[in-house]
Structures are given as C-alpha cells and as structure tokens.
C-alpha cells in the first residue's frame, strides 16, 4: 500500500520540531528510554490514521488525543501540533503528502485527492496495527485463549465478523424467547375455546359439530367448513346476546376452569421440579457470594443491552462501545458457573409460571362475570390478587434477587386469600342463582362466547406462528453465519499457523527446525499450542523462554499481517519489539525481516545500540537510515548526535561558565562517538555481558586499532615498494599519536564517575584545553567528508573515507 518517504513533526507529543527522511527504506531509531522514539511512532500512526493507540483503549481513561497529543507547551494550542507525512504509493508510482493537526485529527489535508490515492489512504487508515509494540506482541502469545482471540480478531479485522455473529445470535435468542409466552397464551386461549364449546379436542370437525348443534337450536343454517374467517355466530347478529348479562352455562364452565387452574397450580407447587428449584434457590441464598454473583450476572446482562453509545450506562464513564461490551462479556464469562445454575433453576420454574398464567386468566374471566352480575359483586380483592400474582410471577421470571424470588414463589404457592375466596364464592352463588336459560338462550350465549374465544385463539395463533417463523429465520441466519464464519476462520487460522511455524523455524533453525504450531478456534476463544522440541504441543508460555515467546509474538504478528494485507503489507513499525527477542537469534530476526519481507519497509525502534549495530551489520538497515538520539528535554525534544555541532555546544556552555553542562555533553558524546568509531574501524571491543559499555570500553580499542591499521598500511605500502606512501602514513600515525597524548585520554579512563566529577570541578579555562584536545582526537578519526572506515571484506582491504581522499591499502603484496 504505502512506504514512508518523510515525516515532519511539530509540537507533537515530546517532539518540538523533527524531520526524518526515511527514503522509503528500512529505518532504525535508537535512543535511551525517554528520548522520544515512541513520539515518532505516535506521529506515524497519527499521520496515517488520525488516532494514537497509546492514548486510547484500556487504562487510558482521562487521556485524549486533543488534550494530550500536543507537546506539553502547546497543550492549549492543538493546531500547532502537526504532522506532515509523505508516503510513496508503489502501486500508483506516485507520492502523497498528508498533513494532520491535532485540532482536527479527522480532517487531514491531502496533496492528491484522486480516488485511487484516497482509496489507499482509507485502507491504511483502518489498519492501525501496522504499528506493533512489545505490549501488543506478547498479548498474541501468552494471553488467555479468550484474550488472544480478541487480539487476533482485532488484528485480522474480525471485529465486524464477530459483531455480526453476536447480533445474529442475540436476535435468534430473543426471537426464540418470544415463542414461549405466546405458546402459553395459545394454550390458555385453546382451553377457553374448548370450554365455551364444551368439547375436549380442538379439531375443525369437533368445533363445527359443537357450533352447528347450537345453531340448529337457534334455527340457523349449519356451517359447512371452518375457514380462517368463519364466524360461528354467522346470522346471529340481529339477535346478538346481551353482553350485560351473564351466560349461565358458560359462566359455570369457566368457574370449573378456575377450579382446574387452582388444582394445576397446586400440583406444580408440589412438583419435584419446583421443590428442586426451591432447594437450589435456598443454597444460592445461603451462599452470599453466589447470590452476589447472580445479581452481578443480571446486572451485567442488562448493562450489555443498555450500551447504546460511548458511555457506561451505570456511571457515565466514556468508553468505546465495543471495548465496554467486551469488558462486560469478559465479566459474564467469569460468572459462567452461576449463569448455568440460574438458567437451570429458571427452567425448573417454567411450569409453575405457566400455571400461574392460566390461573390469572381464569380469575380474570370469573372476575368479569362478577362485574356483570346484578347486583354486581365487588371484585376489587380478586383484581388486586390477580395483579399481585402477575407481579410475583414477574419477579420469579426476572430473577433479580434470590430472597425476593423465594418470597414471590411463597406468595404464589399460598392458598387463595380469604377475601378472594369469598368473592369467588359470591360470584359462584350469584351465577348458580341465575335462572337456567332456555335452550335457545344457552345456544346463543354459547355461540357468542365461543366466537369471541375463537377470535382470540386465531389472533394468538397467528402471533405465535409469526414468532415461530421469525425464530426459525433468525436461527437459520445465525446457523448459516456461524457455519460460514467458522469455515473461513478455520482456513485463515490454519494458514496463519503454518506461516507462523515457517517464520519461527527460520529464526530458530539452529534447534527448532521442525517446529510446528496449532491455532484452534472455538466460540470466542483461540487456542494456541506450539511444539516443544518434538515432545508434544503445549501453550507457548509452558516451556519456551520469554525471549522465544517474544520471537513467537513477532512471527505470529508477521504471519497475521501477511495474511491480512498480503502484498499490501509494505509498511510496519516495530516499536521496541526486537529488543525483547532472545539475544541469540537477533541476527536471524534481522535476516528474517530482510529476506522474507523484502517488500515491507520496517521502521524499527530500540533503546539498545547493540541491536542497532546488528541491524546495520545484517544489512537490514543502511548506515545512513537511522537516528540515534542522545537525549531528550522538554524544551527541545529528542536530539541526534549528528544533527548538531557538539563542539560549538561545549564552547557555548563554557562561555556561560557552565562547566557541568560542557563536561556532561563531552562525556556523553565521547561515549557515543567512540562506539561509532569502533564500529566503523571494526575495532575489537572486550565483551560485556551487561552490554553497558562506557567511554573506556570504546576509546582504547578505537585508538589502538587505528594505530594498528596505520601500521598495517605502512607494512602494505612497504611491501608494494611505495615508500612515499609509507612515509605519509607514518607521519599520519605520529600526528595521531600526538593528539592521543594531548587529549590525555588514558588519564580520563580510570573511572567513569570520577572523570565526570573531575571535569565538572575544572574551571572553564582549565576545561577548554581538555575539550579542544578531544575535538582534535576525534577529528583524527574523520576526513572532512565523514568518518574513516574499513572496507567490508574480511580481513579488511583498506582504510578509507567516502570521498577517497584517505584510502590506505591494507593488503600486503
């Protein structure tokens, strides 16, 4: 997609003003911690995406790009904080410049707005994962399967796939839930209809037979067929039953139904299922911890449904909705055991709840008769009881608190209150006292009620059918999506695992050439097992060292990126990632990046200068394509040793009488430059296992080695009979020795901290000759064009500079 050409960073993070020319090649940025390396990484990410990963996500509440991306001195002037990034677009053969200010991160100025360019930039903008930090690297390897799945899904842009799966699952679940209550409602409606027609089976034939029997009494034509719009009381309209009177026969039947409903409830209260549910609820109640977990589970389930925007529905804290949902899902997962227990108890209580629904419906029917009777019966107690039953049933269904649930079950299970019982008896007595209807009145009443109940039955049947259809469609869609995504992901993971194993074997070819790996996806999780020296497959953290695990993290990242972007994987920023790879395989890692990813431009940061050298000597990074920060301060940001005149800085400090500053600058510069000189001359430096090299570790080898090279040059010139050249080299060696003596360098190498203190105690006048002598000494390792270096052959054939003004042949005749 892109390669980095150049970036200009102003007043951004810890950087005041910095320009880097990447030249579209691999580029290394080295410097101690806190010198601004990550500021450059942030600037690259910001330029391309408008975001900064380190300022968002977990653990960054209260931090925002607008408030905290500008340099601290420009925090109130976000428009000053700008990044101008020039990218090469290899596929289009052109370059584009993107300028973003922190003030308007999502409104970049783009130099070329042609659709092809914008399409590439839009693709890059949704891939912040081109930046890999060590923190992210390790998450791929040693996190839990659930966390790893999230990381990998996020990297592979699977969030959209997973979100859609979750949405389909939620819809399928909710559609399924709609069916249960409607099914129960249909059962009640059916019983009511059967009761009205005094039949026991609901078939078309039985309904017609019962209806036509009544129609015959009324002298109405029989109904030939029962269709969806058929009215049982067709032709009866003119003689409609008086709705203000109570149809005695039907009312008696409905009283009988109420009795049956009471009996059904009693049986369910005493059933084994209900008893078992009560025991489990008591256990939950006596275990305060479990009860708390049950409450948490309910709360979290509700919270998931209430995450509608970017704030927490409970405390209004700002969250990215997907992050918050994932956070809640993680907590819910931890409550899995409680969730299962609660689900089983709910299932056991279902029959009880269904009998309560029938009971309430029967009460409601009887209550209506009471209101129609003359004189009317006061049904307020019955009405209040029916309402209370409904409320308690809701408490049981919602299951918010165990004690409240137990209390509601106890109320539901209690016998009908005396007041209600009295009301029922009053209604029953009043109905019994109604004169028996004539056959015609009874038939008319029965047909009228039956038709009402048939319509109710038809309505609820239709709603149930629709709900079942929705449930079937939602389930089919979910199953199809699950199958499709599983197939795709299995293929992807297999490919990633194989490629990962290839890459890891490459950097560990010395002892893990036959390395294999398995990525095993399952619902919301991603298992990761790797071979351990042929002894079996284990999680990466089980036996492999941390360094090897870091190597795995890098290889997994590269395999995933390759899978994600393919030939579009042209740019990646590895932020202090290589540092953590085990030291024995660094060169192999450099070779891996160079050889397996020849079309990818890597920007690599490290705080280890030795790593920087590895990158150079392995040919991963060219000598000129690097920044080596020496320090950082809040006013100036990071500074490179090569971008300023150190000697002028020292003189300026001395003019101000600040020997402390001048001495510190000289010492740090000498530590840096002698290291560079040793590298350029290939001077042998005694190995330090802690890699904490100091001035003395580099200065002596550098001086001694240059003297040796001069001697080799003289011997070579003599062997070729070039006495003039030999004399010139001899003179150069003598000048060099004089400069070494003048600098008194050996004297300053006894103890680093003592030197520093001694220099700092000198007066400006006394320190000036010291710095001048070192200036001269360092010049002796340089030509006007740049540093002296030895040629790349082994053994080196020449000591030279870039302009060839100095070119000493080291090979004897």
């Amino acid at each position, binding site marked *: 997609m892109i390669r980095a050409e150049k970036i200009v960073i102003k007043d951004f993070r810890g950087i005041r003003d910095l320009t880097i020319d990447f030249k579209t090649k691999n580029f290394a940025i080295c410097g101690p911690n806190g010198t601004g390396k990550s500021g450059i990484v942030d600037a690259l990410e910001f330029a391309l995406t408008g975001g900064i990963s380190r300022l968002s996500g977990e653990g960054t509440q209260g931090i925002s790009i607008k408030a905290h991306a500008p340099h601290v001195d420009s925090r109130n002037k976000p428009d000053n904080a700008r990044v101008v990034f020039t990218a090469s677009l290899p596929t289009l053969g052109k370059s584009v410049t993107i300028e973003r200010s922190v003030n308007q991160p999502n409104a970049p100025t783009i130099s070329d707005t042609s659709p092809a360019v914008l399409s590439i930039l839009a693709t890059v903008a949704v891939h912040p994962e081109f930046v890999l930090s060590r923190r992210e690297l390790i998450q791929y390897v040693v996190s839990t399967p659930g966390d790893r799945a999230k990381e990998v899904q996020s990297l592979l842009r699977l969030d959209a796939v997973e979100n859609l799966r979750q949405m389909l699952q939620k819809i399928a679940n909710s559609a399924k839930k709609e069916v249960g209550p409607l099914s129960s409602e249909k059962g009640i409606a059916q019983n009511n209809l059967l009761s009205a027609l005094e039949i026991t089976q609901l078939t078309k034939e039985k309904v017609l037979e019962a209806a036509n029997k009544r129609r015959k009494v009324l002298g109405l034509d029989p109904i030939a067929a029962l269709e969806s719009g058929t009215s049982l009381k067709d032709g009866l309209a003119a003689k409609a039953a008086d709705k203000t009177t109570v149809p005695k026969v039907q009312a008696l039947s409905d009283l009988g139904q109420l009795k049956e409903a009471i009996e059904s409830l009693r049986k369910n209260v005493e059933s084994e299922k209900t008893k078992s549910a009560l025991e489990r609820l008591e256990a939950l109640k006596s275990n305060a911890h479990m009860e708390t977990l049950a409450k948490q589970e309910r709360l979290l389930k509700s919270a998931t449904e209430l995450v509608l925007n970017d704030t927490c529905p409970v405390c209004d804290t700002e969250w990215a909705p997907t992050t918050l949902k994932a956070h809640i899902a993680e907590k819910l997962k931890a409550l899995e055991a409680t969730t299962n227990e609660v689900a089983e108890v709910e299932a056991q209580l279902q029959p009880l709840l269904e009998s309560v629904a029938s009971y309430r419906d029967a009460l409601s029917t009887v209550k209506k008769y009471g209101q129609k009777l003359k004189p009317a019966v006061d049904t307020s107690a019955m009405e209040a009881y029916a309402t209370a039953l409904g409320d308690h049933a809701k408490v049981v269904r919602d299951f918010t608190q165990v004690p409240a649930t137990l209390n509601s079950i106890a109320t539901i299970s209690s016998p009908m209150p005396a007041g209600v019982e009295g009301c029922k008896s009053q209604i029953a007595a009043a109905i019994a006292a109604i004169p028996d209807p004539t056959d015609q009145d009874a038939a008319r009443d029965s047909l009228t009620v039956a038709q009402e109940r048939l319509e109710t039955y038809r309505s609820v049947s239709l709603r149930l059918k629709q709900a079942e259809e929705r449930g079937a469609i939602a389930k089919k869609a979910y199953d199809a999506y699950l*199958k*499709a995504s599983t197939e795709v*992901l299995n293929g992807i993971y297999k490919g990633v695992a194989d*490629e990962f194993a290839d890459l890891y074997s490459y950097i560990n070819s010395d002892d893990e050439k036959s390395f294999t790996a398995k990525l095993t996806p399952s619902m919301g999780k991603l298992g990761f097992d790797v071979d351990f020296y042929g002894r079996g497959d284990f999680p990466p953290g089980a036996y492999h060292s941390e360094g090897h695990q870091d190597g795995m993290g890098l290889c997994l990242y590269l395999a995933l990126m390759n899978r*994600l972007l*393919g030939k579009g994987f042209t740019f990646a920023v590895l932020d202090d990632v290589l540092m953590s790879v085990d030291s024995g395989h660094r060169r192999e890692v450099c070779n891996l990046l160079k050889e*397996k990813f*020849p079309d990818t431009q890597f920007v690599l940061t490290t705080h280890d200068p030795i790593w920087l050298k590895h990158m150079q000597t392995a040919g991963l990074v060219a000598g000129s394509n690097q920044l080596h920060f020496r320090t950082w301060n809040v006013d100036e940001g990071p500074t490179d040793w090569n971008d300023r005149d150190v000697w002028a800085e020292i003189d300026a400090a001395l003019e101000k009488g600040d020997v402390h500053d001048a001495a510190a600058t000289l010492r740090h510069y000498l530590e840096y430059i002698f290291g560079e000189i040793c590298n350029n001359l290939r001077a042998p430096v005694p190995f330090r296992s802690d890699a904490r090299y100091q001035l003395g570790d580099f200065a002596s080898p550098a001086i001694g080695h240059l003297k040796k090279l001069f001697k080799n040059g003289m011997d070579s010139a003599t062997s070729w009979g070039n006495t003039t050249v030999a004399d010139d080299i001899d003179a150069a060696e003598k000048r060099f020795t004089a400069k070494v003596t003048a600098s008194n360098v050996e004297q300053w190498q006894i103890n680093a901290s003592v030197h520093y203190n001694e220099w700092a105690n000198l007066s400006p006048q006394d320190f000036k000759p010291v710095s001048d002598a070192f200036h001269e000494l360092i010049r002796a390792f340089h030509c006007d064009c740049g540093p002296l270096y030895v040629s790349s052959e082994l053994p080196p054939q020449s000591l030279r500079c870039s302009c060839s003004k100095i070119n000493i042949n080291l090979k004897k005749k």
Partner: protein
Amino acid sequence: MSTQESTSADIPGQTYDKFIAQLKADEMPAEVVDQLKKLLSSDAPITDASLRAALFLESK
C-alpha cells in the same frame, strides 16, 4: 517462496460470500436474502434494528 506471495484475506468479504451461499442452500426466503445482501453490502453501520428489519422484512 517469499511469504509475501500469499494473497490478502478479506475475511469479512469471504464470510459474507459463504454466508449468502449458505442461506440460499438452506432455502432462506429470497426476499430475506435480498434484504440481508442489501444491508451487509452497504456502508451504513449495521444495527440490531436494521438487522431485524432485514431478517423479518419489517422495512416493507
């Protein structure tokens, strides 16, 4: 072989194609499939409501 010879994975795209094919194989009503195709291939964010509307043909 360079690892960069492998092709990129448009995973959501691949999943979409397989999903639609699976729906057809499962004889999902054509109208529902059309609505889902329209929703999933548009740039608009997919919400619970829009997905329900597509599945249950509620937008009609």
